[in-house]
């Protein structure tokens, strides 16, 4: 029989003791595991919620309404400062306008009057330094299907039009059309997911500013923060930089308010996890200390007949690991069964007077299901839980048996 098999067998030398230890360890492990699952589930929900709101900050002139003929503008100088803020990684500037039909007759094959319906009506335009950003045309997708994207930072008379507009006006990549008294060249044809998007012509920001005589003016901008965690700070920095002349908005404030209860639950579960893990470690150590001390005489026998301290420590660690695997299995099973219910209780999913952890009512669809947290144990959670239990057991039993194994055999044999 090797030291390992002896250690395993020792774990079962007393059925009552083994069962008691498995239950005690199981309870503390189970509680730790439940808190680990609750913490991870809530954290995951918070991360998903934050990810869903995006990492952008919208900037418009104070009192400006999109689509209005507003005479209020931001300036490229102001926005240049925003673009250079440390946590801003991108700044998408836009200036909307309107093409007025010209040359309503005598349309050559590839030069014509541009209109959404091909009937010479005014056409919406947008000048932007980020021509592929669908938000500039009120869409959520924008895909270039032919040609090359225009240079948004340039000042050329290039344009991007939708497939729909190209077909109705008999235009293709390389065709020209006239507006503002200049001939625009179609550089790219795109498709978007909205009608308004498909009815908009995209041109470089500087071109739009030049042709609409709004030199340096920008109607709206969207800043992208380097991370979600910095979004709140970036929002504040931009607002402070632009002052009262600009409305700076992001979903972060509402999200933070909505997430506050989840943050509380996350903190609660984290502290509970630490407490339960500490309890599991203490129980494991004390149990092993008790086992080793009550077998002090046996340690003396083993040393008297030539057993080394290392071998004795190894035997007790094996015994502790065996007991911990038993306790861990009981705990993980109990924890997996109870995790959903306890997480729901923590979040107030179950209803009732105490339920709420009452998450506030919110308008943002991304925040509408914050209280619906699905508590699930991943394989990683289980491995982390089991690994933690075994580590604690190995340390506890190792420390306890090492202390005993250092005594002289005669001293251990004299003890009862």
């Amino acid at each position, binding site marked *: *029989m090797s030291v390992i098999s002896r250690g395993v067998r020792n774990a079962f030398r007393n059925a009552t003791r083994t069962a008691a230890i498995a239950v005690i360890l199981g309870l503390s492990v189970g509680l730790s595991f439940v808190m680990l699952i609750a913490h991870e589930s809530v954290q995951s929900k918070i991360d998903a919620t934050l990810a869903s709101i995006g990492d952008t900050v919208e900037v418009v002139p104070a009192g400006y309404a999109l689509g209005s003929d507003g005479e209020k503008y931001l300036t490229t100088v102001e926005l240049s400062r925003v673009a250079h803020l440390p946590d801003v990684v991108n700044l998408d500037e836009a200036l909307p306008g309107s093409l007025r039909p010209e040359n309503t007759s005598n349309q050559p094959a590839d030069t014509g009057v541009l209109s959404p319906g091909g009937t010479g009506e005014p056409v919406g335009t947008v000048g932007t330094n980020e021509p592929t950003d669908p938000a500039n045309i009120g869409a959520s997708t924008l895909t270039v299907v032919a040609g090359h994207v225009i240079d948004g930072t340039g000042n050329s008379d290039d344009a991007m039009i939708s497939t729909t507009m190209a077909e109705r006006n008999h235009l293709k990549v390389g065709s020209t059309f006239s507006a503002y008294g200049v001939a625009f060249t179609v550089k790219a044809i795109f498709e978007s997911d909205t009608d308004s998007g498909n009815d908009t012509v995209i041109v470089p920001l500087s071109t739009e500013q030049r042709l609409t005589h709004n030199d340096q003016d920008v109607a709206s901008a969207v800043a992208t923060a380097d991370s979600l965690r910095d979004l709140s700070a970036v929002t504040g920095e931009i607002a402070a930089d632009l002052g009262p002349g600009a409305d700076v908005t992001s979903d972060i404030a509402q999200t933070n308010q909505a997430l506050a209860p989840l943050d509380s639950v996350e903190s609660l579960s984290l502290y509970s996890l630490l407490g339960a893990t500490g309890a599991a470690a203490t129980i494991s150590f004390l149990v092993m200390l008790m086992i080793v001390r009550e077998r002090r005489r*046996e340690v003396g*026998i*083993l040393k008297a*007949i*030539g057993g080394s301290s290392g*071998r004795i420590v190894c035997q007790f660690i094996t015994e502790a690991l065996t007991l911990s695997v038993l306790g861990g299995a009981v705990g993980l099973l109990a924890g997996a069964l109870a995790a959903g219910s306890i997480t729901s209780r923590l979040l107030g999913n179950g209803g009732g007077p105490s339920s709420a952890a009452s998450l506030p009512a919110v308008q943002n669809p991304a925040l509408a299901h914050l209280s619906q947290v699905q508590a699930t144990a991943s394989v990683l959670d289980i491995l982390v839980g089991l690994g933690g239990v075994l580590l604690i057991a190995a340390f506890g039993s190792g420390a306890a048996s090492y202390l005993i194994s250092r005594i002289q055999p005669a001293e251990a*044999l004299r003890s009862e």
Partner: protein
Amino acid sequence: MLEARKVTKSFGSGASAVTAVNGVTMSIPDGEFIAIVGRSGSGKSTLMSLLGGLEQPTSGSIEVNGEDITRLSNNKLNDYRAREVGFVFQSYNLVPNLTATENVMLPMEFIGRGRRERMLRARELLDQVELTGSKQSRKPGKLSGGEQQRVAIARALANRPKLILADEPAGNLDSQTADTILELLGALAHSQATTVLVVTHDEAMAKRSDRTFRLTDGRLGEDDAAG
């Protein structure tokens, strides 16, 4: 050859210090059956522990085949106990959750013998001490005192030690079983050139030995008559 020179062992310190073994000097050649007698509390068991390397003397030296075991490192002392010494205790000191065979196999495991070799040797030794059949598979709790002491003797012989130290080996046994155990130890000393040192308070038992030392209040004297 076992030689102890001015070996002293004290417990505690200051005014409350107790000297269990006081300046013991003795020399024991290989293959002798030695008895150390003395009253309870005279220091017999402590002397045995010192000779077996179970604890360190306060002063003095103990040489086994020329090597001072009081200067050995813990690892070498473990090796000394595993290879050179076999212990037989009054209270048997068997590991309770191992079978008789497994108890005998244990010292061989500590010096790296293979499982099959350990098993064969353990059975052979148990047969030799007349513990046969299903009793070899029983745990100590299912064996009588005499049977447990036989297992302890078999365990002490497992690694073919040069020295066997027996502390009151028949102390808990009836007279008939005690006789058998002593005969076994005596035969062992003479047939295998193993030094057997028996610690006892039983004068009758001491008479079976080749030489008898008497321990009084930690001091050693040698009896003139040998058994």
